[in-house]
């Protein structure tokens, strides 16, 4: 294969590898902007992955599977919302517990679905465009979820920064007491944000189990939920930077595999580290302005809110 063709396939693989991270991180970004820290992303992804897979196997409809995956992720997150928003449990501890819970629950649901193969989602194919050299496969040969994840970036940005609802959500995240005093329903807004985060994590998980590697295996997210969480922070809560970070992470992951395959003499352990190093480094560098980080970080992040307090 020519070098250009390899470059094209690296690009195409990069977008796919970034997709689960992008879904989960965008969801978590909205959650955190509302002032809630949900560390249960990994757990919600797994529940979404197993539910989407199971329903697709049972009904034969990938669309139904995706809808159920999003609903399942949201349902899992509602447990978190119930505990932290209404029962005022500690968010960090509850989020960690949600991950443990999600790992266990998904394994339980998935028991009957291990070892069942599934067809992946169909890929886009526009004659002429998909066959373009280098960029054809990357831009016009992906499946619907890859495009959906990318489309979600401007949508989340528009919502947060150019809509009234987004302004209210950010206000709640900055200062819940003031927002409450103004008459905004802090808990309801946060509840909706948490549900959105759960649904997005569910979709990210479903991308893995229904498309990327169409099968169910326990713990198949392999830590991608945690990477998504880190992306949000390192991208200083900016949707476009989250996308950049996800692409970078995906791209370097794929690139290092190619470097190994070409027999370049760099220790593979070091190469395996590279995606983490490169992503953290780049995101820290582009957002190294401390004042701006403070500006972007939701001031009430992780703080409990009680209407009477």
């Amino acid at each position, binding site marked *: 294969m020519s070098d250009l063709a390899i470059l094209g396939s690296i690009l195409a693989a990069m977008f796919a590898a970034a997709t689960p991270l992008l879904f989960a991180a965008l969801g978590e970004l909205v959650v955190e902007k509302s002032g809630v820290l949900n560390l249960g992303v990994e757990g919600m992804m797994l529940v979404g992955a197993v539910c989407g897979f199971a329903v697709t196997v049972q009904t034969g409809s990938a669309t139904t599977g995706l809808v159920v995956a999003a609903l399942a992720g949201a349902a899992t997150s509602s447990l978190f919302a119930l505990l932290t928003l209404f029962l005022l449990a500690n968010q960090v501890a509850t989020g960690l517990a949600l991950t443990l819970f999600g790992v*266990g629950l998904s*394994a*339980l649901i998935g028991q009957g679905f291990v070892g069942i193969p599934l067809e992946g989602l169909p890929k886009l194919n526009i004659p002429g465009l998909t066959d373009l050299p280098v960029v054809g496969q990357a831009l016009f040969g992906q499946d619907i979820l890859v495009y959906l994840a990318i489309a979600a970036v401007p949508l989340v940005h528009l919502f947060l920064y150019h809509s009234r609802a987004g302004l209210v959500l950010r206000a709640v995240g900055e200062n819940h007491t003031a927002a409450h005093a103004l008459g905004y329903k802090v808990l309801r807004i946060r509840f909706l944000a948490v549900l959105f985060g759960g649904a997005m994590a569910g979709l990210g998980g479903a991308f893995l189990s229904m498309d*990327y590697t169409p099968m169910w295996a326990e713990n198949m997210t392999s830590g991608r939920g945690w990477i998504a969480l880190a992306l949000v922070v390192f991208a200083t809560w900016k949707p476009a930077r989250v996308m950049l970070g996800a692409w970078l992470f995906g791209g370097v992951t794929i690139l290092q595999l*190619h470097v190994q395959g070409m027999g370049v003499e760099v220790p593979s352990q070091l190469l395996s580290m590279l995606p983490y190093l490169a992503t953290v480094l780049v995101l820290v560098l582009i957002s190294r302005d401390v004042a701006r980080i403070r500006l972007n970080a939701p001031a009430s992040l992780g703080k409990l809110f009680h209407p009477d307090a």
Partner: protein
Amino acid sequence: MNRRTMGKTMLGLAGAAVALSSGIPLAMADDKLKVGFVYVGPISDHGYSYQHDQGRLAVEKALGDKVTTTFVENVPEGADAERVIEQLASSGHKLIFTTSFGFMNPTLKVAKRHPDVKFEHATGYKRAENVATYSGRFYEARTVVGAICGKMTKSNIIGYVGSYPIPEVVGGINAFTLALREQNPKAEVRVVWVNSWYDPGKEAEAAKALIDQGADIIVQHTDSPAPIQTAQERGLWAVGQSSDMTRFGPKSHLTAIVEDWNGYYVDRVKAVLDGSWKPIDTWGGMSTGMVELAPYNPAIPEDVVKLAEQIKGEIVTGKRHSFQGPVKDQSGKVVIPEGKTATDEQILKMDWYVEGVQGKVPK
């Protein structure tokens, strides 16, 4: 949901303590021999731990009237393992199989405290009065697979998805490559390490990268069927690992290297029953049935199947060794001279590639 599944789902993260309270039945007052099994993964992995559990089931089937078995799955390697093994030992189990490399030191520690309990540790190298070790010569099957790939490849590039650069995996790559090039001297092997035993996403990415670089057969030494799926998607061949993975790629699955512990487990339990058990080291190859191949894909031409069967037969009868001299390393230096075969120690410590493998072994 029964108590076992409760234990199972919690165990992976919440640690062994949870499983101990829910997963292991209390000591029963009967005179059957109690045999315990400790697995590193879930038995539903359809791979490594699944195959060990098949062995446990074979013991139950063969000797069910004389033994009862218990298993604990998803046991993390390290300190938690010691608690699980200790619990099994102190709850009346007289023979305990610890089935992962990382259980080595915990097994020995517990064995010291329970001299009346016999232990069997898989893939380790430390033994004691009451600790035996066992493993399979999986490289033998890789010799057969290498010959098949040598005949099947058209691009003369084989992609190899590796887990960790440990001697077992490096030795497997070498055995594969030697047999590959015996059939097809122009063929070469490209290795990508994913630094994980089980990460479907990463294994698929590695397989894709290798395919994009021209590989038309993917061989894996990782445990998920993702590389098989990737090969099927691209219309290429692949070789499975640990268990038969045909259903994940009926059109891509050439065969798979299958670990079969059934015979060994039944034999060892029998040995304890009749008092002949000794703390020996068993390293069984294809002749013992410990290492097997999954059924060949029907699309493999008849002469290739015949060749594979012939090589398998030669290995079983001892006529052929996977590392038959002269074997040269990448620099062209003869490591195993003509007329000699690699010693077990050489195989167990293999940290160099033979000619025909691209790149260097990560150190």
